[in-house]
């Protein structure tokens, strides 16, 4: 009787140990099975294209595929192409103006919303809404508002076709995107404003510091991490400008190349000229630029959070 019990418990223990190792293997097997499809997608459509894109950039490559290797000639071609240079000039000018504008408008709206106004949830949602809407819809609406006979001209008494004039087309896109994106910037600033301790403001009130002075001396410097974050993240976003340029210029980047952007250059070089090599090279250049900016952001945001 006793022997039977011992044997039973022993075999149970052995089975238990066996099934523990078995369970480990089973768990790992299920783990690989669960991540198999997602990893296949990431490998095939993200990691492989990274390598393949760099590869294509060293070839003459047409609509029917690889022709022959050309070394770094494609990079040479794009950097000597006046259209690519113009697109870089445009995107730098665009980014340098649009990001501070988004920050200023976003911060202004955040300060107003944060000032305990009536209907604050309603206004917060209303100003955020354009950020959620498709670029095509917002761009179509602005094409209407900014046309020669449009609402803006009716208000200011002009007759300029804002998107049709090479001296204003890019700035009209700046206006449209600042208007759209300020709502998202507002949400980041609102979160930052709400994390500032009220003690600071009470101290300022006791000292009799005015509202304007309180803002510039206390609030604005305390928002430094938010400024940094918004500057870099939205700066990177601005470099990828495409939809709005494509739609207002019917894909030409015009008038007279004034709305040409690097992404539009990639698109037109590939799909209008069927030169995939230079297009891939321009893609690699953009990737490197964005990668460096992202590293810069990681470094600076990390430091400002630690400090």
């Amino acid at each position: 009787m006793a022997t039977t019990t011992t044997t039973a418990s022993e075999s149970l223990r052995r089975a238990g140990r066996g099934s523990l190792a078995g369970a480990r293997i089973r768990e790992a097997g299920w783990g690989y099975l669960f991540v198999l499809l997602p990893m296949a997608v990431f490998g095939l459509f993200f990691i492989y294209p990274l390598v393949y894109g760099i590869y294509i950039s060293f070839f003459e490559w047409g609509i029917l595929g690889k022709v022959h290797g050309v070394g770094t000639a494609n990079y040479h071609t794009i950097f000597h192409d006046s259209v690519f240079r113009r697109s870089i000039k445009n995107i730098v000018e665009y980014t340098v103006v649009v990001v501070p504008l988004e920050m200023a408008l976003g911060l202004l709206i955040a300060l107003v919303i944060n000032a305990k106004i009536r209907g604050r949830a309603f206004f917060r949602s209303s100003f955020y809404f354009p950020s959620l809407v498709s670029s095509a819809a917002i761009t179509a609406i602005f094409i209407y508002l900014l046309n020669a006979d449009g609402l803006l001209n009716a208000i200011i008494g002009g007759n300029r076709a804002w998107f049709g004039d090479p001296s204003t087309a890019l700035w009209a896109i700046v206006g449209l995107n600042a208007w759209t994106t300020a709502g998202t910037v507002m949400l980041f600033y609102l979160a930052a404003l709400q994390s500032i301790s009220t003690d600071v403001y009470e101290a300022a009130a006791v000292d009799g510091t005015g509202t304007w002075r309180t803002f510039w001396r206390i609030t604005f410097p305390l928002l430094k991490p938010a400024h940094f974050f918004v500057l870099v993240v939205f700066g990177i976003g601005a470099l990828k400008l495409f939809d709005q340029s494509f739609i207002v210029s019917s894909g030409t980047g015009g008038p007279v190349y004034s709305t040409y952007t690097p992404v539009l250059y990639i698109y037109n070089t590939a799909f209008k000229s069927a030169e995939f090599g230079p297009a891939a090279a321009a893609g690699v250049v953009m990737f490197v630029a964005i990668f460096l900016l992202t590293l810069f952001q990681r470094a600076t945001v990390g430091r400002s959070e630690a400090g």
Partner: protein
Amino acid sequence: MLQTSVAANEAYVPPRSRRRVAGRLIVYGVLIAVALLYFVPFAYTLSTSFKTLPQTAYFNLIPHPFTTAAWTSVWKDYDFKRYALNSLFLAVTVTLINLFLASLGGYAFARLRFPGREVLFLLVLGTLMIPDQLRLIPVFVMLTNWHLIGNFSGYILISMVSAVNLFFMRQYFLTIPKDFEEAAKLDGAGFFKTFWRVMLPLAGPAIAALAILQFQGTWNDFFWPLILFGQGSEHLYTIQLGLAQLSFTYQTLWPQLMAGSILALLPILVIFLVFQRFFVAGVTAAGIKG
């Protein structure tokens, strides 16, 4: 300390309250200006969509005569019915596949132990650094070689799962107590059953947020549909492509263009009104992505 501040407050009551009134006036002044800046464009868009073309020369907000002709015309003559259905099909399909794969992968990375898990997860996060602008040419070449340009399957294939979605689900699964899985294991449930019957229902809020954000992302997408359907596949056009084409070809048909714009944003407006709180989660996710 408290007493001092109270005393200080009392001493300054009259000037402070005057300053407060002035401050409030400025706040509401700015609010009204910003509100006009944001409401007027949408108000005119709506108004113009119910006007006749000659009426768009005037800026009266109430259309006179009031007509729905532009709406019927974009829906039927300019094929927006087909474009809207294409967008709806793609958005629903891509969302469902993302929900399944992001939860499946997210759960495995959060809870199942297997060799190489951390390396694979770093690889997933690394894909966030690869911009669409670099992927554009190689992905187009690959899909061309596989004859997946000019039909929906190429678009669905490359959109099946994103690192942001997988990361989002993993973070949510990490917050669920392990007791639930252990109880399921004691009941003899296998790994898939535990995931499907126990963990997935517990992740309801995360799944709802992800569904809304992915639907919005696919519905609004302009870049990839343009790349994959833009070369002469008009029957595959999404509503965003249809709208861009309407603006290229008939740039001054304002009532139609505005009706088309509203159609292109309407589903997002409805979802936003019903599920506002989930969009804030989206901003947090964007913060992680950045």
